[in-house]
């Protein structure tokens, strides 16, 4: 439980550093952010599949996802896309269709906050459907803004 309290500030600090960093650093930080997010999603799915819905691990994962959803706004400074010539799965559309991307980020942040609340509520059916919806909001964005197959 306690771990979730420092995750948000650490990610925030990382995001703040990313703004001032070189594209390579930014991309590294972004990848690390998404890896942590992927791990939190795995924990979510593991605990939901096991029916372990009161697990502190699930609450912690939901808090991590929701923190990442807030922090991701800072993960895409201009110049950190494919034109940086760094290896990145971020498509140029993130910046050329900025309004749409922002809407997708908002949708994810909304879902993540809602999911954290649902988990706290403890209703099994709501948690299951919430996890599915949250996953769908990720995929919706990836289909348009991420290079596939990586």
């Amino acid at each position: 439980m306690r771990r979730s309290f420092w995750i948000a500030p650490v990610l925030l600090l990382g995001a703040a550093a990313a703004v001032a960093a070189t594209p390579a650093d930014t991309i590294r930080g972004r990848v690390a952010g998404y890896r942590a997010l992927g791990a939190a999603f795995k924990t979510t799915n593991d605990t939901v599949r096991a029916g372990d819905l009161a697990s502190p691990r699930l609450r912690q994962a939901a808090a991590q996802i929701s923190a990442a959803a807030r922090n991701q706004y800072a993960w895409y400074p201009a110049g950190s896309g494919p034109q940086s010539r760094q290896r990145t799965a971020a498509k140029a559309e993130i910046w050329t269709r900025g309004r749409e991307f922002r809407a997708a980020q908002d949708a994810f942040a909304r879902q993540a906050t809602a999911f954290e609340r649902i988990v706290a509520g403890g209703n099994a059916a709501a948690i299951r459907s919430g996890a599915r919806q949250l996953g769908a909001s990720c995929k919706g964005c990836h289909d348009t803004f991420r290079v596939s197959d990586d």
Partner: protein
Amino acid sequence: MSAPEAVKVWDVPTRLFHWAIVFFFVLSWRSAESGAMDWHYLSGLIALGLVLFRLIWGVIGSSTARFTHFVRPPGAALAYLRGPADAPVTTVGHNPVGGYSVVAMLLALSVQVGTGLFAVDVDGLESGPLSYLVSFDQGRVAAGIHEVSFNLLLGLIALHLLAIAYYRIRRSRKLIVPMITGRDPQVAAGAAGLASAGPLRFVLAAAAAAGLAWWASTGLAY
């Protein structure tokens, strides 16, 4: 049926396994490519059951399906390669080189279905039924191996098809028909045919394989 006197070389379970794994390999491949992960899990679990069955059948199955029948010392494989291409076929089952191809294929298939159980996708959204036993990073390693062994399988399948074409063109051997009918009219009459393992062993092997695959799909629930 057209040649009732032809020597029996492959039993029904071995042939069923062969064509079923072809079908589920293609289904697994296409479903993964198109992102139909529900189908991919189902297809992969059936493939797991099939591979488990074939491994069991390699120990208790009919003569030509057994590992002891076709896993020969490397020297035998070399001697076979050096031998005359037009030698009459007097024995049934895999030749000493083909035996190694079966071993390679089954190894690659085992790695393929085994890593699939633990694999996690890049988003942590899709994962195999045993992935809860490993960390996200370990699950990503499993997914990496899953991809490598898939490419290895594509290579082995290409080699398999090339070998069949080679036998057809250079040695006038028809290998596909016996894998469908179970009988090989090109084997010299009077050669000792397949020694069948019988239906009871088949039922036991199939039940054990299906049970294990189902158990894996539940995440080894007890």
